């Protein structure tokens, strides 16, 4: 500051700073006592200027020998060059006699550009109104005061603050002119924040001077939405484009969250949020003009503003406080002591920056999966809903009939069973189960990553952001882009499994818990079962601290988890399992690869031992995962890609965690470490930003729904079981496919296939017969394809996209082309049913079996691959199909007892593991 303030009265020495008081007024009744208080100052201003108001205000100002100016622009001319400071005062201010003197004396001493007074209530001077503001990144003000908090000198220290109250501000004259004064378009509080923020951008220091006391004649609240609009306007004027890029959307999300939470206290903020947005759109030109002025000649960046800001959202924090206060008020003292502690803990937690990031992670998860929980899982590829009946699904898994294609006794994937178990918790609703699994996986996966990296003292904020990359980063994009929905819960389980196994818990409990977690993930995506073990081995190779024990624990847990996958694990052809499906060939964008490399190398090469090891571990996981995920030319199939991309997801998340944590420590590191940390931070930041690409469509990265509503027309009103023969390029068909001269085909049950239909069985008699028939059609040997297909229960033929093969079906005598659809569809004129009695009556679907319609009975032909376990009654092979004689009103597949027992054993094994985990926890808690 060019001019030093003096502590002496203005009349004492001619060199004392000269101050002009500028009073903003529009009410003469309030103005009079304000002017009287100014007039009683021991350090009197050289002149007093009243700005604003009309004739009455002008008259009152004239009576008190004060100048009057209609607006701020006129005030600039009236201030005069001989003045050093402007004392901005609002008409409701009642400065105590020494207020200005204190501002001048202490403000000069600390070299402040803007100095504010302590504000107390005029009616009760013991009650504090303001001792300066902190703000959040959204420019919401935070007084730090409880309602009615008494002034006990607890804040009587001169300190830098984000903003001071505009009730009484001493401002350097040149700064006042340069900044254009207080923005008249903004309400008082946000205007003060805005002015102080602009002052700080110019390098000015903003302090509160508690010895300067101003009584405030209030209250004088502005509408909430105007304050919200002013906060946004302040952001627009002050922040850099990069900060605005993320802060404005997040501010809107916070507004939405406030709208939801506010309902619980009878406040609905959404109209205000929208009104504020609209107001800012209307005032955007003036805001941009003011932004140009504010940022021109700035001396510091956004970081300087962030220094005086609190973490999280002050509005949400105030909301939480209000909720807590209301809860307290509703109960007698002591009744809620435990709860009050919890509330207090909650308040503490909410003040933790990780809480805010965690809140954002939840919001992100909600946004990224919104179509799944609000509508339905997109039906495309392997993204399929579970069967409607969880009991039927469990029965089919436990040695029952596999209904995929024309059916088989092959063991279903464990995903069918685990989803069915979750379905019991959603009252049997398959869509709700999928939504719960998906959303829960996103949230728990992200928090699991935070928990994992906390093991290595990485901060929770970095961990949560790494969790976002785990669940929505390049690995997950590759998986869900290939419609592997089941990989979502599998990957979410990985950090939990690892954090458990590398943790310090007792061995038995750790193995039990880890086995349960690994088993949970592997049930959804069996290919990921070895990822935790491999990751632990790699950590043992490159990590820090005791690690070999974790490898042993993880090995034992993996074996224990494998037992949870019975009976599938005992019948699976693992060679075919890893090699089947579309060839693995992950092709990330060059930018993503560059950011992963930059983040990993930046930290691994320069950071300390722990973070360097973490980044190296992530790099190894990514590199090995990428090899697996690109091994298609060497036989790697779809499940190999799942395995590889799971490792990529985990590795990328580890790198991001290391990058963020190193970035947050960059100020305490010097030299190359700081540079590497900045590079890591920058690259990690962009990897997090890249997750928005997955979140945008709201399908957790899954492709758009392709088949969800296409075949609703094929559902019979009476529940008759029939099938659709679906043709199309392999990548457009759901689940596994067979091919006919390269054209994919498979049969599905309308309206869309369920998870238990995803994987087709090895070709059996019926499948071969169907292929032979289709070859005959292709050779032009068939003119009544409808009649022949009806034998397979096929009532419809459809194509996912146009194909020359349509021509062959158009020339059939009993297939009717339906031209009203967007895709080629043929209706079979011959009544087709998956099961029918000898008299031709179609039977109805009942789980994986069939039941007779009213009045029908006798022998039934089941158009499924022949198997002698169909019954009850006597079984006969009817060509490739099954005939059941004297079976009664329903027929079904008698489960294989050994497989059923295995499934039960795996369930009991899971219960045993859970029991061990719970019991050992209690034992620990007992002492």
């Amino acid at each position, binding site marked *: 500051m060019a001019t030093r303030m003096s502590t002496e009265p203005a009349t004492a020495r001619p060199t004392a700073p000269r101050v002009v008081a500028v009073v903003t007024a529009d009410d003469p009744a309030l103005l009079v006592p304000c002017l009287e208080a100014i007039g009683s100052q021991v350090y009197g201003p050289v002149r007093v200027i009243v700005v604003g108001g009309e004739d009455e205000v002008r008259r009152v100002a004239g009576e008190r020998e004060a100048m009057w100016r209609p607006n701020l622009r006129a005030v600039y001319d009236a201030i005069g060059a001989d003045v050093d400071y402007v004392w901005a005062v609002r008409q409701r201010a009642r400065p105590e006699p020494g207020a200005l003197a204190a501002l001048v004396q202490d403000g000069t001493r600390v070299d402040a550009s803007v100095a504010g007074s302590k504000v107390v209530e005029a009616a009760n001077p013991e009650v504090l109104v303001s001792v300066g503001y902190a703000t959040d990144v959204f420019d919401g003000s935070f007084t730090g005061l409880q309602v009615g908090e008494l002034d006990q000198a607890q804040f009587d220290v001169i300190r830098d603050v984000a903003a001071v109250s505009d009730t009484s501000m001493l401002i350097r004259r040149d700064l006042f002119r340069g900044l254009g004064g207080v923005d008249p378009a903004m309400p008082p509080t946000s205007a003060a924040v805005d002015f102080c923020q602009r002052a700080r951008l110019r390098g000015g220091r903003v302090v509160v001077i508690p010895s300067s006391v101003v009584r405030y004649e209030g209250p004088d609240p502005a509408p909430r939405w105007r304050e919200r609009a002013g906060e946004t306007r302040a952001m627009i004027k002050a922040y850099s484009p990069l900060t605005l890029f993320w802060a404005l959307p997040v501010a809107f999300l916070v507004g939405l969250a406030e709208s939801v939470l506010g309902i619980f206290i009878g406040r609905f903020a959404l109209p205000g949020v929208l009104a504020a947005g609209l107001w800012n759109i209307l005032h955007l030109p003036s805001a941009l003009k003011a932004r140009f002025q504010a940022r021109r000649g700035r001396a510091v960046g956004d970081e300087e503003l962030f220094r005086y800001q609190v973490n999280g959202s002050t509005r949400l924090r105030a909301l939480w406080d209000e909720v807590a206060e209301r809860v307290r008020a509703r109960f007698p003292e002591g009744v809620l002591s435990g709860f009050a502690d919890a509330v207090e803990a909650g308040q503490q937690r909410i003040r933790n920056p990780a809480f805010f990031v965690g809140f954002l992670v939840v919001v992100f998860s909600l946004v990224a999966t919104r179509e799944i929980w609000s509508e339905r899982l997109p039906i495309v590829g392997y993204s399929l809903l579970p069967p409607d009946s969880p009991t039927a699904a469990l029965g089919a898994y436990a040695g029952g009939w596999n209904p995929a294609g024309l059916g088989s006794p092959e063991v279903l994937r464990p995903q069918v069973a685990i989803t069915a178990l979750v379905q019991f918790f959603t009252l049997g609703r398959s869509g709700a189960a999928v939504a719960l699994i998906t959303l829960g996986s996103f949230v728990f996966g992200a928090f699991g990553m935070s928990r994992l990296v906390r093991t290595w003292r990485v901060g929770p904020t970095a961990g949560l952001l790494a969790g976002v990359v785990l669940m929505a980063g390049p690995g997950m994009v590759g998986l869900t882009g290939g419609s592997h929905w089941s990989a979502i819960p599998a990957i979410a389980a990985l950090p939990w499994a690892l954090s458990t196994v590398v943790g310090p818990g007792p061995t038995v409990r750790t193995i039990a818990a880890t086995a349960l977690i690994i088993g949970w993930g592997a049930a959804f995506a069996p290919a990921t079962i070895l990822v935790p073990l491999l990751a632990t081995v790699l950590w043992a190779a490159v990590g820090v601290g005791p690690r070999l024990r974790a490898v042993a624990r993880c090995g034992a847990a993996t074996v224990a988890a494998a037992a949870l996958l019975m009976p599938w694990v005992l019948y699976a052809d693992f060679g075919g399992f890893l090699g089947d499906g579309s060839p693995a*060939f992950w092709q990330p964008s060059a930018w993503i690869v560059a950011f992963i490399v930059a983040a990993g190398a930046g930290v*691994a090469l320069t950071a300390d031992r722990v973070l360097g090891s973490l980044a190296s571990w992530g790099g190894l996981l990514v*590199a090995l995962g990428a*090899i697996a995920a690109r091994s298609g030319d060497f036989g790697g199939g779809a499940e190999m890609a799942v395995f590889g991309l799971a490792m990529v997801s985990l590795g990328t998340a580890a790198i991001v965690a290391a990058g963020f944590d190193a970035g947050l420590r960059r100020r305490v590191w010097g030299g190359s470490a700081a540079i590497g940390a900045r590079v890591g931070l920058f690259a990690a930041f962009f990897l997090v930003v890249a997750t928005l690409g997955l979140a945008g469509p709201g399908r957790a990265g899954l492709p758009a729904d392709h088949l969800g509503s296409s075949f609703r027309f094929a559902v019979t009103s009476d529940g008759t079981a029939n099938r659709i023969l679906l043709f199309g390029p392999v990548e457009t068909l759901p689940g596994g496919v067979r091919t*006919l*001269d390269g*054209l994919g085909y498979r049969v599905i049950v309308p309206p869309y296939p369920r998870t238990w239909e995803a994987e087709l069985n090895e070709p059996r008699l019926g499948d071969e017969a169907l292929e032979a028939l289709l070859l005959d059609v292709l050779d032009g040997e068939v003119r009544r394809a409808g009649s022949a297909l009806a034998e397979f229960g096929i009532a419809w033929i459809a194509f996912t996209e146009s194909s*020359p093969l349509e021509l*062959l079906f158009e020339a059939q005598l009993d297939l009717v082309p339906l031209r009203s659809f967007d895709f080629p569809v043929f209706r079979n*004129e011959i009544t087709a049913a998956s099961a029918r009695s000898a008299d031709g009556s179609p039977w109805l679907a009942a789980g994986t079996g069939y039941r007779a319609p009213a009045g029908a009975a006798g022998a039934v032909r089941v158009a499924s691959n022949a198997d002698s376990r169909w019954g009850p009654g006597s079984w006969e092979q009817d060509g490739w199909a099954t005939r059941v004689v004297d079976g009664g009103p329903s027929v079904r597949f008698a489960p294989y007892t050994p497989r059923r027992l295995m499934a039960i054993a795996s369930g009991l094994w899971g219960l045993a593991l859970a029991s061990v985990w719970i019991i050992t926890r209690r034992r620990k808690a007992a002492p």
Partner: protein
Amino acid sequence: MKRVVTLGVIVAGAVVAALLPEPPPAAVPLAGVVIDRPGIESPIDASIWYCAWAQANAERDSAMSVASMAPAEAEFTFPVAIPGEPADTALVATLGPGAAIVTLSDVAQRGDSPAFVEFSDGPAAAAVTVVGDVVASDQCVSQGPDEWFFAGGSTMTGEALALRLFNPFPEVAKVTVTGFSEIGVEALGALRSISVNPRSWRDISFEELLRQRQSLILSVRADEGLVVPAMSFRTGTDEAWWGGSGLSTSWEFPVTQAEGTDAALVIAHPGVSAVDVTIDLYGTDAAFPAAFTFTVDSQTPLRVPLAEIDADLLGARVSSTGPVAAGVVGVGPAGTGVTTGAAEPARTWLLPGLRTQGLDTGALWLLNTSEEPIAVTVGVLTGSDILNSRQTVDPGRLVVLPVTDEDALGYIVSAAEVFSAGWTVRGPSGIAFATGIAIPNE
């Protein structure tokens, strides 16, 4: 050191991952598989025959004749042109070789009843003979071109010409009918992309639409779906029906001129440039090689009366330098007969409609256009037996054998060399010409 080694491993892994080759792309679906828009073709051993013209009412009835080289079941389907109404069906079995007949009035008696016949084995053939107030007979069709041609019709005073479009398939067909006559290309814009409902038919009369045409050539092309067309020509008191044909550079007409008719060959050239046409005629005791040679202009029908030839019975062979459509029409006191020829001779012919029934007598026509005599085995197909006899056909001669066996339901004729065969049915109410159905050479 450990960090450097680790980074080295990571870099090596990344390089390996980057260098892994992309798997070969999946095969393009149906690559190399040529799928043409199928016509009405069907497999030889499970053939489907479409009979667009069959009638049963108070004045006339139709004999739906089938013949098969192998034991087979023939399932008849008679669609009803009322949406939702189930089709009438009939099922007969044949020996191998054998023949069978379904009398239409036994199945449906509602006037027009187009049908299709599905054989469980083959080769097989079907034909329809309409008797009663008229005599008309011709083979049904089991295959056909993309564009069907009808030569032989006319719309002079007292004549009626009708085109039937039969759609046995479950999809609506869109059909465009074009034509040309001696006055040039006819304006038939109203017949562009006309609809024929599924499992139904549509008749188009030309005697009002295109009056006073002596030689009217009509063509039918399906824009969408498939149809089986047939033409009916009425003059005097008799009527003839025949199926369409494609184009060919040679045609053999075993039945060209019968007693009591004045025959004319009608040749149509729908191409863009003129072609040279040679007509060889064959009588029972004389041959008239190159009896006529013409240059036929594009889109101009050529009608060649054969009355000046000194023979009551004639067969013919038409050869041209470009693909043409051809038909023979015979009109006279005996009645009216029209038929298309055979594009090429064959060793075996099925004649499912050939028989003598009541006053309607059939005759087998055998034409040998080669320069060697041919020994033809004539097999009478009854419902339970086959009675073979041998007949030699001299080179360049026509042999006409009256059919007297009343048990006959059809005939099969075969020889070691190629020849052509047809039949006529003559009765008090008219005459019918038909060309046999060639069995593909094995």
